[in-house]
């Protein structure tokens, strides 16, 4: 049974193993405005979390953001590596999660065909 007790243990583990910490790791942000949600943002986020778990990647922080005004390109996913640019991917489907995690999150390679914007 998952309990708050287990969360305490998790905290100890996170404190002792800094590799597991996301504080200066990679950020994955999914747009969750109304049209993002309708376009499947929640499923995309779940698929990304799944991939991260499957590959045992540590230190990834997931976040969500509201409407960013690119409704026609939903689902939108931003990936920010420490010190790197902010890459915005558009028209992301749950089936793209594998590539985004394997290529960008793990190997730092931008998945070119899905990029819609880039900012520093």
């Amino acid at each position: 049974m998952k309990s708050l007790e287990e969360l305490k243990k998790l905290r100890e583990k996170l404190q002792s193993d800094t590799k597991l910490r996301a504080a200066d790791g990679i950020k994955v942000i999914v747009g969750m405005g109304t049209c993002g949600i309708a376009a499947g943002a929640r499923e995309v986020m779940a698929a990304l979390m799944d991939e991260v778990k499957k590959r045992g990647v540590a230190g990834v922080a997931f976040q969500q953001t509201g409407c960013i005004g690119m409704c026609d390109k939903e689902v939108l996913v931003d990936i920010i590596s420490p010190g790197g640019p902010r890459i915005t991917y558009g028209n992301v489907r749950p089936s793209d999660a594998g590539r985004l995690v394997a290529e960008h999150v793990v190997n730092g390679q931008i998945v070119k065909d899905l990029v819609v914007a880039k900012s520093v």
Partner: protein
Amino acid sequence: MRDLSLHVLDLVQNAVAAGAKNISLLIGEDGEKDLLSIEVSDDGKGMAPDFAACAKDPFATTRTSRKVGLGLPLMDMTAKRAGGRLDIDSRPGEGTKITAVYRLSHIDRPPLGDIAATVKIIAAGCQGIFFRYEHRKGHNAFVLDTKAMREILGGEVDFGESAVMEWLDGFLREGLLALDKTEG
């Protein structure tokens, strides 16, 4: 929106966008009264009275001036179709409370959907916000309070960290399963 859990995600996003510091989600399934209720309340900036009055009307304002999106009119429509209603109680500067009720057994009631996935994602985005989720089913209740999580995790750990998300996923799924248990 395919199911109610996606509407819930949308409602909570509105509360976050309204600058709320405390957000509460209450879901109640009452078989005896044949009612399913969803209530989201926040202490965000609230809506002006004229805005709240037409927030359910998809044609009342232009798309660009509309800050709460099309989520509320959509939700109002599905609630009415399922023998229920949507109420908006909002005061500028104090907050907003949205209540949706459905007939539990109504054939047109959308399924609740994956509420655990919704709550998990809300919690991930709740850095400076206290979010409380309570789900009642008959005599059983399940509560997730990010305040309690924050107390355990301390200041530095991000709720969105994959290890925390994994714990939360299990905690929610087991807690929600237990809601069905002891009830005959």
